[in-house]
């Protein structure tokens, strides 16, 4: 049987190698130059007999690579009995769909089928010159590739354990479960020679040494994906390590495409420099690290049971990492005021918030993350982040019936406290608490030094008294910041803080609106361009 196997990422290639083994002379592999560049042993492997890569110099555009394959190598796609495609949203997948050739679809990475919006966000991002990250994004969207719904997909291979039930139900009959860690473990048991060959092919070192207190951090190449700027990428990991991994020895395992200089940012850390798929890590390390942590990496999901402690955030952290100080200050106040027993949140990154509580030892037995004001308990302490979908009247009713405290965070550009504390509810006391940031280092320092505020609203005098007396400080070693959290000492200072906070909040709201407007303008311009190009083609 002749098979054509195309992979865009190492995860997909590893998955296909495990799932489709053994291979014969008739099996042909296509892989991206990104894989080829990192793993030159692919061409010498005993497993793979015929492999082609879209050389980045000769074929900077995907289409020319396909022309090369089909004409110069005399390869006829229709002559293959089976075709397997990972990274279908790239040019080869699009080509097959447009040619009407059925094939087996592999999800981009474990669980991605259920969160296609993350992949779409990456693919639709543009660089500084307005060039799309994935030039085929529009087509991929149109052909239902991100959701795996195109009728040409004979089978959709995905990891069931990470899928939303409704997604699997929607693709009923077509889906095939494949769990890479289970397959690798099976391989270790049934075909160790194949696993050994796989490790050799992917440059996996013979052994990796972990100590007792090591935290293994799997990174992502956020700045290269243009999801974050270079500076944000650094700041994100600095906050991540300061807030979640304090006291651990840091060991970084960068994503194979991530070339960030972690050793420079965290001088005392260890970096596993060898480039190899993280999925193969458990087979070569001497012991389990104390904690495996990641913002977003399937390596942890894949080997959840292997790692003793596990910390995984979500893609929301890419936006919420900059609110870490206010989350932390809010928790500190709740602890100081003895309000940790019953806590509700609205508009905060729940995974981030929970992880912060867990990793810093806050005994919050009952945290409920709500999306509506009505869902909160009246006597709970409510932490409010982004809540711009609520009207002033919503707030008015909410504030009147409350007995517990409300902590407004001024993050996300929508300081809800302004809407909540309109003059008609001026019976409620409001106490601002300022989070001042003091710079402690120059090297690799990109944090904002702008003050942040918490606003404590409560009808309980004792809580307000606690707010007035609340002070704390925290040194963030990796970020090079000292946080000084303090309530105003005098009524005048309090009033100034309130006005400053309101002004900042207004500015941020406005800025957010301007940015939103700019994004829409760009989108509009892009769509106009596409429309004009289509018209030109039609003419």
């Amino acid at each position, binding site marked *: 049987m002749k098979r054509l196997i195309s992979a865009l990422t190492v995860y997909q290639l590893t998955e296909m190698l495990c799932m489709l083994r053994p291979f014969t002379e008739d099996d042909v592999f296509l892989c991206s130059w990104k894989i080829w*560049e*990192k793993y030159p042993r692919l061409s010498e492997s005993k497993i793979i007999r015929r492999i082609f890569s879209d050389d980045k110099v000769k074929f900077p555009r995907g289409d020319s690579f396909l022309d090369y394959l089909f004409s110069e190598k005399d390869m006829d796609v229709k002559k293959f009995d089976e075709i397997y495609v990972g990274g279908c949203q790239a040019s080869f997948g699009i080509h097959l769909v447009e040619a009407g050739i059925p094939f087996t679809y592999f999800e981009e990475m474990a669980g991605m089928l259920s969160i296609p919006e993350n992949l779409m966000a990456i693919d639709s991002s543009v*660089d*500084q*010159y307005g060039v799309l990250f994935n030039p085929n994004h529009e087509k991929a969207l149109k052909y239902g590739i991100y959701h795996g719904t195109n009728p040409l997909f004979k089978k959709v291979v995905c990891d069931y354990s990470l899928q939303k039930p409704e997604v699997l139900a929607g693709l009923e009959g077509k889906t095939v479960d494949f769990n890479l860690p289970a397959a690798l473990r099976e391989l270790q048991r049934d075909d160790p020679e194949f696993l050994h060959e796989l490790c050799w092919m992917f440059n996996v070192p013979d052994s990796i040494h972990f100590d007792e207190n090591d935290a293994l951090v799997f990174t992502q190449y956020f*700045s*290269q994906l243009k999801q974050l700027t*270079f500076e944000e990428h650094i700041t994100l990991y600095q906050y991540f390590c300061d807030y979640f991994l304090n006291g651990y020895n840091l060991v970084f395992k*960068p994503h194979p495409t991530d*070339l*960030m*200089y*972690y*050793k*420079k940012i965290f001088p005392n850390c260890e*970096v596993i*420099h*060898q*480039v190899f798929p993280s999925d193969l890590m458990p087979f070569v390390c001497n012991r389990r690290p104390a904690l495996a942590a990641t913002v977003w990496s399937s390596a942890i999901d894949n080997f959840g049971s292997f790692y003793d402690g596990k910390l995984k955030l979500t893609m929301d952290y890419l936006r919420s990492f900059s609110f870490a100080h206010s989350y932390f200050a809010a928790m500190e106040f709740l602890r100081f005021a003895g309000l940790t027993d019953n806590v509700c949140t609205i508009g905060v990154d729940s995974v981030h918030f929970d992880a912060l509580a867990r990793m810093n030892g806050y005994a919050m037995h009952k945290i409920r993350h709500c999306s509506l004001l009505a869902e909160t308990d009246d006597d709970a302490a409510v932490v409010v982040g982004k809540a711009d979908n609520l009207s002033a009247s919503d707030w008015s009713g909410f504030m009147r019936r409350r007995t517990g405290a409300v902590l407004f965070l001024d993050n996300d550009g929508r300081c809800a406290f302004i809407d909540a504390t309109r003059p008609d509810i001026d019976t409620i006391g409001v106490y601002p608490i300022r989070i001042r940031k003091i710079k402690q280092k120059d090297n690799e320092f990109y944090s904002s030094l702008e003050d942040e505020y918490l606003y404590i609203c409560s009808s309980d005098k004792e809580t307000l008294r606690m707010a007035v007396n609340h002070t704390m400080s925290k040194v963030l070693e990796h970020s090079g910041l000292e946080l000084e959290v303090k309530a105003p000492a005098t009524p005048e200072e309090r009033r100034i803080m309130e*006005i400053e906070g*309101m*002004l900042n909040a*207004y*500015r941020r709201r*406005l*800025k957010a609106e*301007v940015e939103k*407007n700019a994004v829409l*303008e760009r989108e509009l311009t892009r769509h106009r361009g596409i429309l004009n190009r289509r018209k030109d083609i039609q003419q």
Partner: protein
Amino acid sequence: MGITSKLLNLKLRVWERYVDGNEAVRTVYNNRRVSDPAFHEKHRFRELLWLAVLILRNPKNYAPLGINRPLAGQPESAVSQRPNPEAFVNRYLSYEIASFDVFDTLLLRPFNKPDDIFALIAQKLGALDFPDARMAVEKELHTINGEITIDEIYAEIEYRLGIPKDVGIQTEFETELELIQPNPWFVRLLNLIRFMPKEIRIIAVSDMYWPAEYIRKLLDKCGFDFIDKIYVSCDYGVAKRNGELFKLVMDDAGWNARVLHIGDNRIADVRAPRGLGIDTFFYDQVSSVAKQYRPTFVSPLQASIYNGVVNSKLHATADVYAPLYEFGYVYGGLYYVGFCNWVRQAATDTGADKVLFMNETGAIAAQVFSMLFAYAPCEKLLWSNELYIRLSPLYSFASFVDTLCAAAATTAVRDVFIRNGMGEIATELAGVHLDADKPVHKNNKNRLADFLYAHRERIVLAANDEQRRYAEYLRTVIAGSGRCLLVDTLGNLKSAEIISNIVREYIDANFANEVGFADEVGFADETESAGKRITIADRLLFENKYHIFSRNHLSGNKSLFCLLSSTAEPQLGGLDAAAGPLPMLNFTLPELSNAVQAEQIRSGILDYARDYIRIFKNYPTLLNVSAADAAAPFLFAANSPEYMEYIMDCYMMREAQSE
């Protein structure tokens, strides 16, 4: 038409075409005119002739307007199109050696041309003829000897100028070391290479007269202390440009090694290494990317410094800045540096121990001033146009009435009254048959005026109370100060006079206030240069301002200039009586519709000042920017209608029109 009229017409045409229409020529001409007005008045024709000779001798320096102009339609920083280092570093996966040129690549001098540093060295050495001699010696020795060393250069300088060789070398090197700046694009790239999973050797290759040990110190200072080896032409006696120095590099590396070299010279850094099989990447010099976007200055040194700072900011990295941020940085930063230095000088000359910048438009100046002169007391004095109107009944009741009637023509009368602290009186409007909830129209406008005159006593009394409260606030501001300099950037001299009156009336009758005046275009106007405000202005650099912002050039520039002082800070709305000794200050939220834009401009201005201070902190004389030079970038921008339109569009959040 008589012969005199014809001559005058001809003169006017020559003026319009060759002087007024050419920003570079106009600056020189105006400077000349103001430096000796009497002579200029008497010998106008001779002056024009002198100008013609000047242009003919240096045509490049006086290129007509149209060759150099600000970039409109997109941010200038987008032009350089540098790749992102984090993406570029991927290329190194297939190389063993990363090679870099040093000057104008890894290291940037804050000048347009490297030779301009000699002017500063000349100051240190006390040898005014040093720059020319230094350049001539280098050129001559190069022609005779080929690769030359710093020792050879200064041996010849010692012979010609009598400057001891060691002193010369040390002074030049210290100045280089002091001013050299790392190129941020390469700082990031080299650090990424340094920590790549694959070990890559990093080397530097330079055609230079400084030996490697000196270049090592320059590189170390800029954070490139991890470079493995430095190949310098003067150490080996062979150069990059003919490939000989690269042959040594390849001998060391092994001829099979894959090397990527980056540099800014198309021959020495691209063609020569390529001939030896070395891959190359051309990094265009920041100065050549931007040269068509820079204005002409009176002072060549200021021009060089300004270009060096601005070009490095906009074109060294892949960063693309917001158009309004660039506007502030490129066209407003130098103005504020010069202006604040002038204010500082004015304070010194008048013996003022504290400078007060009047709030509303003086906020940015106050921030730049604090940055430049951290040791000099300076404060933002709370004041606003609104407060001015509230206090104006005490000074001119008629103009107060006019102002209020004008405001009431567009806004409900009650709102106007409330805004001006007269909410109580507004309740009596019904008595004169005025609908308080509507604006006045031309038929009942006089009725409103009559109403105000009828309540004159109450209004004046209220204004008097408010003024007394302001005096209490003012007392706290000037406490401990013997003499203040008040800087009014509003252009509303009346405000400054009111404040002076308050000080004399309520605080200290002998308090000596001088009013340094800067109108809305930054400087006093010719026709207004009278009275005490000129006691400061006429002796100082920024006195010669009317020739920069003469009325002829104001019409279109005024609104653009206003953007340079716009801020989104809370405004003082009024003062209420409080329980304590001090009044309660009321603030109104500022105009927020352009808050983001104003913030971008402000950040640009402050960043320029910050960069300028960071680089030249040890050269305070360089802060002494003449008015002509300080205003040159702004006028350059304002003289381009396309750029003006582009910036105004960005400010007003309208989509810039595309071609």
